[in-house]
């Protein structure tokens, strides 16, 4: 049986990679994917604790987080399409003001 700390360390590293991606990426879609990566790192923590404490609550929260991620994908990609339609570019450095 793998110790719990291994899963927590893996989750922490995955989350940090996602944070770094959101900071250094300029493409809106790639920033979006890094946010998905962070959500998955948290999901791994939930499932690891759920399995090690023999409690199903963590997995229920993973289920709800996945639903939120699906809703976020729908709205986020709608926003990305709207930005691209207005600016012909997905570079977030160029979209620095809240007007056209």
């Amino acid at each position, binding site marked *: 049986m793998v*110790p719990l700390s291994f899963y927590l360390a893996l989750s922490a590293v995955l989350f940090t990679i996602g944070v770094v991606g959101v900071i250094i990426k300029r493409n809106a879609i790639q920033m979006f994917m890094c946010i998905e990566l962070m959500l998955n790192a948290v999901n791994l923590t939930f499932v690891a604790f759920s399995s090690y404490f023999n409690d199903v609550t963590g997995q229920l929260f993973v289920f709800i987080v996945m639903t939120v991620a699906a809703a976020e994908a729908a709205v986020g990609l709608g926003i990305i399409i709207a930005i691209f339609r207005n600016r012909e570019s997905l570079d977030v450095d160029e979209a620095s003001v809240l007007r056209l």
Partner: protein
Amino acid sequence: MWSILLFVLFGALALGCAVAVVAQRNPLYSAISLIGVFVALAALYLTLAAPFIAAVQVIVYAGAIMVLVVFVIMLLNVEEEVRRPVRLHRMIVAGVLLGAALVAETFFMLTASGTGRVMGPPATDVGSTASVGTGLFTEYLLPFEVTSVLILMALVGAITLARQTRGLPATGGAPAGAAPAAGGADIIQPGFTAETGRAFARYQVEAGEAAAPAGEEEGH
């Protein structure tokens, strides 16, 4: 022994694919690497005795969300990121040092606390579909219902955001067709007023671009 091996295998796969997500310049390659992360995490969920969550991970994340993302990438024809000169050289060194300190602190905390010890094998029925469904529809029924409202709101929001407003009558704000062009010149709409519309129709007839209207325009 086997569980350690599986953890190292799929953990390394998840880490490598996650680094590739950030390192790739082409968004499509990033998306495919992200699918690799999702599949590796699903395998890790299986080693944690959570088969339902593993199946949902593959179906919802790798199946639905990533198809949506790849579809948008294809739709928008996204170009690769251009390389830009690096600023803040000293800040990069400081950032790497601080990041290494943070990782060292995290590992020290995880090994010094009690989470390092092995807690016994998980019960076999905790991650099953039956136990997840029982918990979801009894104790956590309210969050489940609130989630359905959230999905409805996301549905309406996505339709509102992605709707093509060009063809609709302008009720508030300027329509996209009447906005100034990128070069600074105004776009002249042929049918903007009745006068310009008739002039444009006469021009089209003179230039041979359209058949003459059947006496309807001259009547006014």
